[in-house]
């Protein structure tokens, strides 16, 4: 988690700014100390991260969340428990604050029980899209106030993890419908759930088929190609894109293997270690979400998806903000389309430094 990686300052990307000349430094100024200041500020404020897990019941969503954040956020349900199957899709969120080495992370996980479980799953993605747009709306309402809060609480969904069942064949129609709609509104990371039922060859074949399906239907999952800023990003993200979707296994029980205590699933023929790259790709998912791309996920949500939503809403109200005036937005119609529009806006918003921390 790199608190120092933030979007570049507005001046570097605006074409209209005066040309900055590089000048010779005549002595030590101490600009580097800015990084320390940012760090201290970040540690004091803490970070926020909101993820959503979507998938049919039984694919290990709750267990995966527990494994990712190494804490019993959710009591993972065994099949024997009397958990009534929800008749319609419901969403519920839980917020936890976890701390590591002095860094606080306010984590909100939104679960979607009942997704894809009914006989007729048509339009089961509508409540999810509604929830995501609702968070954008909430943020927008706060943003257009005259006297704004110093730190707008960010409940927008930064990342949506979609669990694909390990059939070994290809994406199902339900998966395609969902991914097509959601990739335009939020960052989606598809994963192959319960991958311990696939052998290595089956896994690779399945992965290739999914990648082909995604390409055929023009579905852009995170990390999106069009948002790669420079060459190093491209190289890093290309490596990740080759392995998407990751084949993951989640576990929250510990077992002893060769004297070490590991998280895993114990079966009669062996123990599947969750953090062993030879067994599954959970470390890749964890690194992507937490260790390397957490800030990037938030940035893209803020700069692209939220901006798309904002433009759409403002166009809907036939008004554009002129200066610090009060903009009376038309109430959000609930017939909001799945995506505000195909426009992929790569604009850097103003005052990002205030908003992110």
């Amino acid at each position: 988690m790199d608190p120092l990686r933030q979007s570049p300052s507005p001046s570097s990307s605006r074409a209209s700014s005066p040309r900055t000349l590089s000048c010779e430094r005549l002595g030590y100024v101490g600009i580097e100390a800015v990084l320390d200041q940012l760090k201290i500020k970040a540690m004091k404020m803490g970070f926020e991260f909101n993820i959503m897990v979507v998938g049919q019941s039984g694919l290990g969503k709750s267990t995966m969340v527990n494994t990712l954040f190494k804490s019993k956020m959710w009591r993972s349900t065994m099949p024997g428990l009397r958990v009534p199957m929800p008749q319609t899709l419901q969403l519920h969120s839980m917020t936890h604050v976890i701390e590591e080495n002095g860094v606080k992370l306010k984590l909100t996980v939104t679960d979607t029980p009942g997704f894809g479980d009914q006989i007729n799953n048509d339009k089961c993605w509508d409540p999810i899209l509604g929830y995501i747009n609702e968070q954008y709306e909430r943020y927008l309402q706060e943003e257009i106030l005259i006297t704004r809060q110093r730190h707008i609480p960010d409940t927008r969904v930064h990342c949506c993890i979609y669990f694909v069942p390990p059939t070994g064949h290809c994406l199902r129609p339900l998966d395609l419908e969902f991914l097509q709609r959601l990739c335009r509104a939020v960052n989606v990371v598809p994963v192959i759930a319960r991958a311990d039922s696939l052998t290595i060859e089956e896994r690779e074949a399945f992965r290739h088929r999914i990648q082909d399906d995604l390409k055929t239907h023009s579905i852009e999952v995170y990390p999106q190609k069009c948002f790669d800023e420079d060459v190093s990003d491209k190289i890093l993200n290309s490596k990740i894109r080759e392995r998407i979707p990751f084949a993951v296994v989640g576990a929250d029980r510990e077992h002893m293997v060769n004297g070490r205590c590991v998280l895993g699933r114990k079966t009669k023929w062996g123990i599947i270690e969750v953090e062993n790259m030879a067994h599954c790709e959970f470390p890749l998912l964890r690194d992507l979400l937490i260790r390397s791309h957490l800030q990037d996920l938030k940035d893209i949500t803020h700069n692209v998806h939220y901006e798309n939503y904002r433009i759409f809403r403002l166009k809907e109200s036939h008004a554009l903000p002129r200066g610090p005036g009060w903009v009376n937005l038309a109430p959000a119609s609930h017939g909001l389309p799945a995506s505000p529009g195909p426009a992929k806006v790569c604009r850097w918003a103003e005052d990002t430094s205030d908003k992110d921390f």
Partner: protein
Amino acid sequence: MDKEYVGFAALPNQLHRKSVKKGFDFTLMVAGESGLGKSTLINSLFLTNLYENRQIPEASARLTQTLTIERRGVEIEEGGIKVKLTVVDTPGFGDSVDCSDCWLPVVRFIEEQFEQYLRDESGLNRKNIQDSRVHCCLYFISPFGRGLRPLDVAFLRAVHEKVNIIPVIGKADALMPKETQALKQKIREQLKEEEINIYQFPDSDEDEDLKRQDAEMKESIPFAVVGSCEVVRDGGPRPVRGRHYSCGTVEVENPHHCDFLNLRRMLVQTHLQDLKEVTYDLVYEGYRARCLQSLARPGARDRASRSKLSRQSATEIPLPMLPLADTEKLIREKDEELRRMQEMLEKMQAQTQLSQAQGEQSDAL
């Protein structure tokens, strides 16, 4: 010759010989969502490659796919006994976004087979009746769910009175032992709650061993199975069929790993004939009784269909019209006759060759 010895103790042998000559046939239906290992399991159960050159349709093809019913037949011979196995597959089941009524084609198929048999049975030429009734349906339940899902319940309720159902948990190597037990328990409870009648094992009160085996089998319903056609070497004394993972190898025929052996024993070794008998005696007879009763009451049939009833069969009760053309049926009957004649010819040829060889031998001697 002993006066009290009549000699019908040898009747079972006669039956045995006749059955071996006639051969057995068995129609098995597999149903369930795609990706649960149905084709692999069929190949493993019968050690065939029924699904050898299978093309898995890609996602865009799946978007417009509707449920189809496919039949594949294979003849398996083991120890001189021939079994003509027909596997009825239901690709496309449970795949679409809206699966309402997706079980109706399956129900219609099963009933069509009954209708066909009813017509044949009541017809004139009963020598070469083709029995295409479904004797057993293996229903695959996903190991990833929390028991039966709404689609499973709807399908099972639609077919449970029409065919023997054996519920099976596919890809069971995804589950840890405790999870498997919990899932089986949950499914059993759900089946009882929804009043779904699955195939009941008859109580065999022959000897203790069989009784114990049967009790074990009953307890492990639904069977948690793993299928594989690949042979792996796990460092043991002999190569076994299984699936090789990085953390270990699952052996298909190891009773500790999965219930494959139980399923195979039940389906092929011990209960094959019983499944057929239950189909004939309970299910088919029930269907026949219902059908004939509804025909015997004139008010029950509407006028339009009665006028179209065929007069070909000699029975007084008119039979329901089938979409199947009569010519197709005739062709099938002729094919069957041809096959039998060919077999007889081959046997006669083999016999003459044998007698010739014997004749030469005796000449030489």
